[in-house]
């Protein structure tokens, strides 16, 4: 009933991220990884890499333990097309300040890292694969849109 779930994982490669990727493979979730540690990585991905990769995410999962969520969410939420993509911020623990920060930045939700992704994945998939209608994101719409309407002379990557 809904469009395909395609997850872009944003964060620094580490064993936890590998475990999440492995769990996605096990449960048949299409996904890609983007290391967003360097400034402009997201920008470059959506302006060039996306068109090359032909992988259009319909959900983004960002590891706030290895990647500052603020610039990423700021970029996405100020873009007329990319702002539709739901972003899940996940991280260690359940500190109320972290939870508030995630929602304040415009994330869809905050997920505390589970002890085992495999244990959480059935509930995750039952919701995101079966129940949620996802946005339609077309590469040509992204590329045709000026992502920085207030910064018309910003250098493109």
């Amino acid at each position, binding site marked *: 009933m809904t469009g395909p779930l395609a997850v872009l994982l944003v964060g620094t490669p580490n064993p936890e991220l590998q475990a999440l990727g492995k769990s996605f493979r096990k449960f048949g979730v299409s996904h890609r990884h983007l290391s967003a540690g360097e400034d402009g990585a997201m920008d470059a991905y959506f302006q060039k890499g996306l068109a090359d990769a032909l992988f259009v995410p319909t959900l983004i999962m960002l590891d706030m333990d290895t990647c500052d969520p603020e610039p990423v969410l700021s970029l996405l939420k100020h873009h007329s097309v990319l702002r539709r993509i739901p972003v899940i911020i996940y991280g260690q623990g359940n500190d109320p300040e972290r939870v508030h920060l995630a929602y304040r930045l*415009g994330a869809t939700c905050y997920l505390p890292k589970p002890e085992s992704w495999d244990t959480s994945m059935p*509930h995750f998939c039952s919701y995101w694969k079966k*129940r949620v209608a996802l946005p339609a994101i077309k590469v040509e719409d992204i590329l045709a849109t000026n992502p920085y309407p207030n910064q018309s002379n910003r250098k493109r990557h």
Partner: protein
Amino acid sequence: MKNRPIIAVVDDDEDDLFLIQEAFKACLKEEKVILANSGQDLLARLETLPILPSFLLLDLNMPLMSGFEVLGKLRADSRYNLMPVLIFSTSSAQPDIDRAYELGANSYVKKPVSFHEYQSVVEDLCNFWLNIASTPSSRI
């Protein structure tokens, strides 16, 4: 005394409200369900709640104030702008889905047609939003 977690539902259709309420009964533990039959009703009820709902199920097609208008009001109000809002609609039109995300909906769930499906959908909603995710009010 700790406040019981709250789930809010807005729908102008009494039959749908009844089905949702019954479906929630089967899967909730301590949470309280608040039912509103219009956007205005919801906004009035929110004023009286001791804590933010863990999430809100919001119908789109309602008279007087549409779900999109309700969503816009919630996102513009600093008291409610962090509350997860899940659109719960019979519409599967892609422009509706895209607009909901653009306006800040946390997700968009297609409303089922039978009670059996309601139970299954509500169970999946609760498993994700109450057991897997954390919300601004649920763990505080």
